[in-house]
């Protein structure tokens, strides 16, 4: 139920983009950037795209289909401390500035091979990226796609077997 409310909220802000485009041009980029109190739509997309590189579509959908960016935006807004918020924003800023330095573009404007290079570079040891990656993994695994398609879903196991030969997931 709450989830539905969230989708409506997201749709509303997309509506606001249209309004902005029809109305005062100078506000368009500002209006378009709003996702919630903490994140812009660009940042949500950026997390989704980074997520898709970390957890791509294979025989099951990837992070983008699981909308990890949207979920993380809600968690950051509602659950994170100011310090955690600042750190995550700094990480996204860092990623964009590394992209600009290396490829002359923000992450979202980079080509696919450039994005892959960026993630490889971050994997070498960027603390903020590590935290973002953990968030993406947890967002993916806790999503409907993660729980029902990536993992086997047993909402009502019906029994306990303390010695079975297959993983329960």
């Amino acid at each position, binding site marked *: 139920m709450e989830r539905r409310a969230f989708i409506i909220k997201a749709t509303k802000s997309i509506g606001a983009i249209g309004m902005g485009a029809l109305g005062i041009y100078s506000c368009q980029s500002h209006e378009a950037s709003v996702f919630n109190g903490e994140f812009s739509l660009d940042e949500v997309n950026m997390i989704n795209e980074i997520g898709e590189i970390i957890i*791509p579509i294979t025989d099951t959908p990837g992070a983008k289909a699981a909308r990890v960016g949207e979920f993380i935006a809600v968690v950051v807004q509602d659950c994170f401390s100011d310090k955690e918020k600042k750190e995550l924003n700094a990480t996204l800023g860092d990623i964009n500035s590394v992209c600009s330095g290396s490829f002359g573009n923000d992450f979202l404007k980079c080509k696919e091979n450039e994005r892959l290079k960026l993630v490889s570079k971050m994997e070498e040891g960027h603390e903020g990226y590590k935290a973002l990656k953990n968030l993406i993994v947890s967002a993916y695994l806790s999503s409907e796609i993660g729980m029902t398609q990536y993992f086997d879903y047993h909402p009502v196991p019906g029994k306990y077997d*303390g010695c079975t030969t*297959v993983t329960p997931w």
Partner: protein
Amino acid sequence: MNEKEKYTFDAIVIGTGISGGWAAKELCEKGLKTLVLERGRNVEHIKDYDDMMPNWELPHRGRITNEDRTKSPVQSGVYNYNERSKKYFVNDLDNPYIQVKPFEWARGYQVGGRSLIWGRQSYRRSYLDFEANAKDGFGVDWPIRYKDIAPWYDYVEPFVGIAGSMEGLPHLPDGKFQPPMPMNCVESEVAQRIRGKFSDDRMIINGRTANYTLNMGEGRGQCQYKGSCGAGHACSFGAYFSSNSATLPAAVRTGNMTLRPYSIVQEIYYDKEKKRATGLRVVDTETLKEYEFYAKIIFLNASTLNTAAILLNSKSDAFPNGLGNSSGQIGHNLMDMPYGMGAQGTFEGFEDKFTFGNRPTGIFVPRFRNINKATERKDYLRGFTYQGGAGRGRKGSTGFGSDFKKNLKEPAEHWSMAITAWAEHLPYYENRMYLHDDRKDKYGMPVICIDCEFKENEAAMVDDMMNSAAEILEAGGLKDIKTYNWNKIPGSCIHETGTARMGNNPGTSVLNRWNQMHDVPNIFITDGSAMASSGTTPGPSVTYMALTARAVDYAVKELNRRNI
């Protein structure tokens, strides 16, 4: 009919948690018209549960929000407080209390109380627990012995529904159990390996839990191993014991129960001529209107701290320091249980084996200290037990891309196992709660101050609880053993007890051997406040249940004999 007659019942029960639910059931089944008061809202069994809602439909998928932390700074730290269970915990801002010393007071104000979110481990106290105070002189002697309560454990357990194994241990008495929930292969192996390895006979047995391995009838099905009870989410299969699933429906079936939610009891009235309580005053939390109800007997089951608060707030000429408080003991001798010291390790073997289903219990290590001369400790009194279990998680993955994704499913190389200690907290007079002189909550009730700490004896056990856990795991063949201490503050075990203790002497205790107030014979108190000691073995609720059934039996007999 005047107002007073209109609101007169045979009995009133204050509180609907574990013990209040039992008082309601027993009184109603004995034919008494019973008013059951609950300060919180109603929670209807199954109908009001949301345990079947998939986790991904929760806006934060279980996470605690900043708003939760602001509204409930204490509750949000309780182990099973989460996005779904939080509706069963109070808003701390609306329900303030003062921590003179740090004390985590977990509270669930609703019909069913904390029975909706309890830990469900259920162990009888043994002869050692009932003799301990007399032996070492801490607290006052229990006015009962194990033999007095044993038939009442026998009476309540089949209705509670406890899965457990028969072990034949005098220091951990067997009960009327359903078949136990099985150990997994690593737990069984470790249990077998440690048998006979310790001169003090340490052993690992099945945890005893109020979850059903047998069908209990309507609204009380067998455990489906969903794991929702452990997370505080209640159970749509009704597969664990709660007031909502078991005792209150039984009371409803008699036609004798009137349940009134949103009713905070603030004061019990006393008639000094008759030397009896006559009734009580309630504030309706929705309208803030006051109501008076009258009855021949009152069962006070508001939980340890609130039960004492109601008594201390019931002042009269006869009892200027609180109703039934001629001993001056009400609010004192507050205990919890220290816990959270243990050890963990990894197990080599069974690499091709896993577990399926979420078992709502684990393994248990009965006490092995201070049982007899051979196990006597010089450095501390009484003892502790362990709860724990073995499991197999996922390994975690490195890198990114399709291999990373695939490897996220890889199981951990080895099983791991941990055991954690729960220990006795001695009764100290100076550990207490009292009412604040001026501060009141929004319903006009004086705010509770809690001044409670662990002392030397509790501290003296800490190292032994960690080291003995490591020894057990080592004997079981575990590797990479590490000890830990969660450094829990008092209250966080949610086993608060002792504020209206039982005892033989009216000068030093509040209740007699029947949980009847020494000073006010038609008030019975059978929640945690009645405890004269915390006991060494946790799972105290089944003791409250047994004492409640026993007290109701006595109270109704006394009522029929016209003694009260």
